[in-house]
């Protein structure tokens, strides 16, 4: 191999390895140098525009005054401007009027999801699917009525029903068994105890179809407030009652009042949202 075949010209660093291997002193390519200088100029400009260098009293703030919280607030304002068109109409309208307005209803369906998730879903499940011990909101059975005003009232003031243990402590174990069998068969009136000694009818009605004004459920349908409607579950409810302070094992059922925590508009939105789960009347 000839020494004359160096394609890079004669300039080398002077070091020679393995007899003829030399390091050429070619300058970096022009495009590479342009890239290098463009890079540091860009870094400099960036750090001038945005907060960067350590500086007296904190850090250099940048010539544009950009802050991340400022950008957040700007974005939030942009979102609120879009929402404002609908939000501004809500305070002046009743929940029923919002429900009837298809556009507002649609807006509430889209926007109240977060509200429901934060405040309601812990007990009632997402989408109102319910949880053991907490009522399903998506079905058509309502303890206190499924009309939009009733739902609004339930959220605003809360609900707490009461069912005394053993029909007011009067029933024997055997009588509780008999009553529980009749109720579990969704035919409560088949037991004379229902309208007799048990005094169930006082709240659940002569026909066992419940009294929404008192929050007493319909016992003739397939929806159960506690458990799955099996004999054992029904028996437990009759034995210990609901919210009966005299019985330590009583079923607990309390819907807290939300008017301290949520604004009136938020409650209206929730009522419309819940109403649209599928069971609202």
């Amino acid at each position, binding site marked *: *191999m*000839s020494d004359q*075949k160096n*394609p890079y010209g004669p300039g080398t660093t002077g070091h020679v390895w393995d007899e003829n291997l030399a390091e050429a002193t070619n300058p970096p*390519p022009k*495009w590479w140098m342009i890239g290098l200088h463009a890079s540091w100029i860009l870094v400099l400009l960036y750090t001038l525009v945005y907060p960067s260098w350590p500086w007296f009293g904190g850090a250099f703030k940048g010539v544009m005054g950009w802050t991340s919280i400022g950008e957040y607030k700007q974005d939030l304002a942009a979102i609120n401007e879009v929402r404002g068109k609908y939000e501004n109409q809500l305070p002046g309208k009743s929940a029923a009027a919002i429900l009837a307005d*298809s556009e507002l209803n*649609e807006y509430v*369906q889209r926007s109240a999801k977060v509200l429901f998730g934060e405040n309601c879903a812990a007990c009632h*499940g*997402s*989408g*109102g*699917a*319910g949880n053991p011990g907490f009522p*399903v909101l*998506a*079905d*058509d*059975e309502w303890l206190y009525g499924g009309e939009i005003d009733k739902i609004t009232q339930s959220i605003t003031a809360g609900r707490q029903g009461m069912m005394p243990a053993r029909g007011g402590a009067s029933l024997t174990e055997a009588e509780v068994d008999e009553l529980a069998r009749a109720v579990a068969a969704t035919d409560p009136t088949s037991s004379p105890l229902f309208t007799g000694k048990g005094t169930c009818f006082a709240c659940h009605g002569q026909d066992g179809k419940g009294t929404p004004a008192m929050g007493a459920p*319909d016992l003739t*349908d*397939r*929806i159960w407030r506690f458990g799955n409607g099996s004999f054992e579950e029904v028996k437990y409810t009759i034995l210990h009652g609901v919210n009966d302070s005299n019985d330590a094992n009583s079923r607990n059922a309390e819907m807290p009042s939300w008017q301290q925590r949520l604004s009136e508009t938020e409650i209206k939105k929730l009522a419309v949202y819940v109403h*649209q*789960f*599928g*069971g609202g009347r």
Partner: protein
Amino acid sequence: MSEKLAEQSVRIEDLYDDLDKWHVNTGGETIHAKRMPGRFRQLKWLTASTWLLFFLGPYLRYDGRQAILFDIPDRKFYIFDITIMPQDIWMLSLTLLFFAILLAVITSVAGRVFCGYFCFQTVWTDVYTWIEEKLEGAPHKRRKIDSAPMSFEKLKLKVPKHAAWLAIAMLTGVSFAAWFTDAYELWEAYVTLSASKAAWIVLALFTGGTYLFAGFMREQVCFWLCPYARIQGVMYDTETILPAYDRHRGEPRGKLRKGNTVEGQGDCIDCNQCVAVCPTGVDIREGQHEGCITCALCIDACDAVMEKINKPKGLIRYASWDELEGKPVPKLLKRPRVLVYLAIITAAAIGIVYGVTHLGTFGLSVVHERSPLFVLQSDGSIQNKYDLKILNKSDVDHPVRLTARGPEGLALRTPAQPLTAKSGRVSSFTIFVRVPRRQLDAEMQPLIFEIQSVDDDGANAEYESMFVGPRQ
């Protein structure tokens, strides 16, 4: 070692020899190609003129609006009386596939036809150098001016050229932007300096890009920037016809002495005209080169010379490797590669035609509520909730009637029918379906939603969803 292998093996010395001759222009020298008339030159102007569509297209009107408009903010593409919405974007994929394979089939048959005749880089560079030649003169004059020190005379030549270049660059930018917004309003906005930020950015990018690429980088773009140059290069095979130098006829080359042929000399008279006219600075006589955009201008140059020296034309001509080496050339439609490409193109074209003719009025989609999947009702029936979305692609509102087919005894609960599908947007409705529990013999059963316009019998759509019940 067999003779053939020995011939193919590469000696280290050869690599060094190659390196010695290896000449790559990385932008250090400006190529001033000679412009010669000829049939490929004419063809090139003809193909380049297809780009007039790019400049004039946006001013076409149809039915009171721009005939072809890609409205990005509203997500609607208007092409004459067709309106394409994002839901039909699969046709875009087919269109891209169509053109990608079209590029492949043409490249495998006739080389970089796109590069040489249609590519914006080639066309704009061609126009820029044409202006350069008109203002500054032939290549040797231009080289002289370039190397001369700055003077008033030089400025007098350079300023009009750059002004003309920038004007074309800006017109390119405006024309591009005009496809995406109303062209006439856009001009007004630019002229009154009231255009949107996006419009100014597009104009700046295209003006800067065109000026830089066509004015200064030119063949460097094809050499180092463009991926298609590489992709197309590898799609050649020995059957691809390309502008090629017939070395069997041309070699050994040698200068013509006193107009007489020298005994034993090939037809190439080493006049270098083929190199002088090459816009990328390639010597076609060295064989296939990555820088060759197959523009065939060297064919024009060589033919003109051959005519002068009374030799047959076609020393440089469109020919395949096989043809030049005297091998049999298979028929076009007997090449598997061409057939496969044609099959793909045909499939894509059929898809596009089907898509455009079957756009439909409605797009219907139904989302089943997942939480909860189903709800037990007081009468023992099972209720499912659905979010129904009707996209109305037409420009009038449609009242539509919704029906559902599925498990026996199903009851549909909808907002007041007919539902209104608003024009040009998605209208969504919450739908409930109830089925008596005894009718449910499987956990999941198909449920088909159908919408039918009350006004237009031809406007309908259906969507298959599921009805979910308790585990059996």
